[in-house]
């Protein structure tokens, strides 16, 4: 077949395919999935999350079990979205003694009803550097939060938590305004951010009212000698709502996990279905065309595999051997080749008797040549539809095994996200943003392949029947 003929064939196919609305919808969703699978790691907020999904330190600055940001639109008390402040105004002041004072001023417009859970100030640099962190409130008051000499080292920036490290200085701030109120406060019990972001009021300890407006956070660093240096600091606001899909109980960003899961669902689904359908088609042709002992052996093997309960077997073998994702794909293939075997087998029995096969045999073609050159091309279109149609079940099987905690722990898959949701009490605590998206993605991906497969089946199958 020449390239131009193929192109024409494809043109005809496409003209027919365009008539199938559900097929187009399926293809559209699939294209989006593939794009997200390829470039998803560029759009997620946590770029190298696939390497650190199970790394507790990587996620430590996120709020725990926070709902998605957009839930603010439906709640009466708006929570603070988690974010990172990186833009600042920098000033440098040199003194005669050679000491340089660097001042970084961050603007933080605060328009929410609840104070942030925490502010984390990160300062990179090197050497012994005295640091001063202060907060200027919209009502004109300012609080000095932190004043200490810190040992900065290359690579790991100094991390200062307002909630944990600045309780005493918060009480000092209150003492400057109202000494009697400060006496009631205990550094171990108060929540510094809820006081710093509240209106000055005698009842602010028990029932703080948020003070909205523009806050300024100032980070001052004293650079005592030219050996020491301070890089660009950043402030992470740990809030009540986070990201497009919230965070889970281990502080991981659910949206990042979902996007990273797309890649694996596609790899598992497509790779498994291609391998198993190609194997099934070839084995079916071989069994039917060669006949005899080969036929008997392959048919018995088919029955054996067909009668095995797939999911229980997969569960037991994963529980005992803990396979990697690649072994898992091979394992699922070992079951799914049966899907196309029998149909291809009976089709080949018919094709075998056609005159052109007889002609090829009379011309001295070898058996393998007939199998690959004459029979396979006819049955190939059929296999495309069954590839697409088998993918939803494959994805569900992998997710089911992962749900039992038997998945490959080096990857991020939707089944594993659901497994952690199940084992860490997402249902009892009603953390719906952790449970609904992964399952919805499994369903959506399954649906797109089912739509595509049904459309392909409609177009490609009649040709076989009319032969």
């Amino acid at each position, binding site marked *: 077949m020449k390239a131009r003929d193929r192109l024409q064939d494809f043109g005809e196919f496409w003209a027919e395919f365009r008539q199938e609305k559900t097929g187009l919808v399926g293809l559209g969703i699939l294209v989006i999935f593939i794009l997200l699978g390829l470039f998803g790691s560029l759009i997620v907020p946590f770029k190298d999350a696939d390497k650190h999904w199970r790394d507790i330190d990587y996620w430590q600055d996120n709020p725990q079990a926070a709902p998605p940001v957009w839930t603010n639109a439906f709640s009466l008390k708006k929570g603070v979205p988690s974010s990172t402040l990186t833009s600042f105004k920098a000033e440098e002041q040199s003194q005669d003694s050679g000491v340089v004072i660097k001042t970084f001023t961050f603007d933080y417009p605060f328009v929410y009803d609840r104070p942030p859970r925490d502010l984390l100030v990160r300062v990179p640099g090197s050497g012994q550097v005295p640091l001063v962190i202060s907060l200027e409130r919209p009502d004109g008051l300012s609080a000095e939060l932190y004043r200490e000499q810190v040992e900065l080292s290359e690579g790991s920036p100094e991390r200062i938590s307002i909630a944990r490290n600045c309780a005493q200085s918060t009480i000092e701030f209150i003492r400057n305004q109202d000494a009697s109120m400060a006496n009631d406060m205990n550094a171990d019990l108060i929540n510094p951010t809820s006081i710093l972001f509240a209106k000055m009021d005698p009842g602010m300890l028990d029932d703080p009212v948020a003070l909205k407006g523009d806050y300024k956070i100032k980070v001052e660093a004293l650079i005592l000698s030219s050996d020491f240096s301070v890089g660009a600091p950043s402030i992470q606001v740990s809030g009540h709502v986070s990201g497009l899909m919230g965070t889970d109980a281990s502080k991981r960003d659910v949206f990042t996990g979902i996007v990273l899961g797309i890649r694996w669902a596609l790899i598992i689904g497509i790779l498994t279905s291609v391998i198993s359908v190609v194997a099934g088609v070839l084995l079916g042709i071989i069994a039917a065309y060669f006949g005899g002992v080969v036929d008997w052996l392959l048919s018995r093997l088919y029955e054996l595999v067909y009668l095995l309960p797939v999911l229980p077997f997969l569960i037991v073998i994963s529980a005992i051997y803990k396979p990697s994702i690649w072994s898992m794909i091979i394992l699922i293939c070992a079951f799914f080749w049966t899907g196309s075997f029998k149909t291809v087998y009976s089709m080949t029995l018919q094709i075998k008797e056609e005159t052109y096969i007889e002609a090829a045999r009379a011309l001295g073609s070898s058996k393998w040549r007939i199998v690959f050159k004459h029979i396979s091309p006819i049955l190939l279109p059929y296999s495309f539809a069954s590839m697409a149609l088998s993918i939803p*079940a494959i994805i569900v099987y992998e997710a089911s095994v992962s749900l039992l*905690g038997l998945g490959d722990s080096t990857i991020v898959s939707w089944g594993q996200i659901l497994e952690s949701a199940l084992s860490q009490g997402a*249902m009892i605590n009603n953390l719906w943003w952790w449970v609904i998206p992964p*399952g919805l993605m*499994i369903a959506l991906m399954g649906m797109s392949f089912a739509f595509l497969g049904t459309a392909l089946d409609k177009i490609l199958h009649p040709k076989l029947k009319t032969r």
Partner: protein
Amino acid sequence: MYRKFVLKRIGYGILMYIAMIFIFSALFNSVADETMRSQIDEEVAQEATKLRNLNEDQLKATIESRRASKIRQFHLDEPLPSRIFWRSVRTLTFDYGNSTIIKASNGDRLALSIILEALPRTIVLFTTEVILVTIFGVILGLYAARKPNGLFDRTNSMITMITNGLPAWWLAMIAIMAFSYTIPIFPPGGLHSNPVPTGIAGILDYLWHLALPLLTLVLLGVWGTAYLVRNIVLSNLQEDFVMAARARGIPERKVLFGHTLRTSMPAIMTMAVLGLFGSIAGNIIVEGIFGWPGIGNLYFIAVQQNDVPILMATLSIETLLNMVGFVILDIVYGLLDPRIKVGGKA
């Protein structure tokens, strides 16, 4: 003729089952032997604590001889093929040994009794599911077949495609979250309340606990069944006898429910049987989510506790059930369609 066919199918099924058990024994041989050895050590150590009036050397010798005799008894000292053979023989005679951790409700650690305790609960859940799915599936399917390509028909096939790739256990998680915690109208799991009510209240309590798993499974399963029923009924509607019935002026309702449904019934029934065995093997995880203490839940616990004997025993029972199902199906097929008997090939 038919009896010969039936005997042949049953014999073939038994052969297949034996072959599968041999495969399992070969695949899981090393782990199973290891578990068995540690179980023997444990057992012997327990026996030794009862022997008070022996000195140290005697005690050691007794322990050694006990262990050796037990290892001989289970053929653990023999070469690999022989170990696989004896393990298969034990599995085929339902001698699954003891569990390592899991216990039956009466404290029994025999794997077989643990499974026999769980099996009826699984059967109750899934047979009711299949009965309900078949009833509603037939109703919906007939309704869809009345106007092919109508709004209802298209909606139905759309939902079928969507539910096709939807894990039942995920729907179960959503159902628990919605109807057990957010709006608490159903219990979040288990077989019955604690303490167990007696009499009528006990039955109602059981049904109350059964309701949510059952609803979830039915809600997911009914669409595919309806779609199949629609296809079967539609192909029968093309037949000449339907045209003849219509020509005689028989009302469409009667044609649909009387003539067409009756001829479609064998196909629908076999589909229901197939559905039963399919859903037991495929939806076992749903049980684990709902804490319904059947076979599926046993898998959940056995995986968490790494209880190898239980895992292998459940797998063997599951395989046997599957096999019985297919053999029954084959025999029913043969009864309904005489052509299959003659063909002989599966």
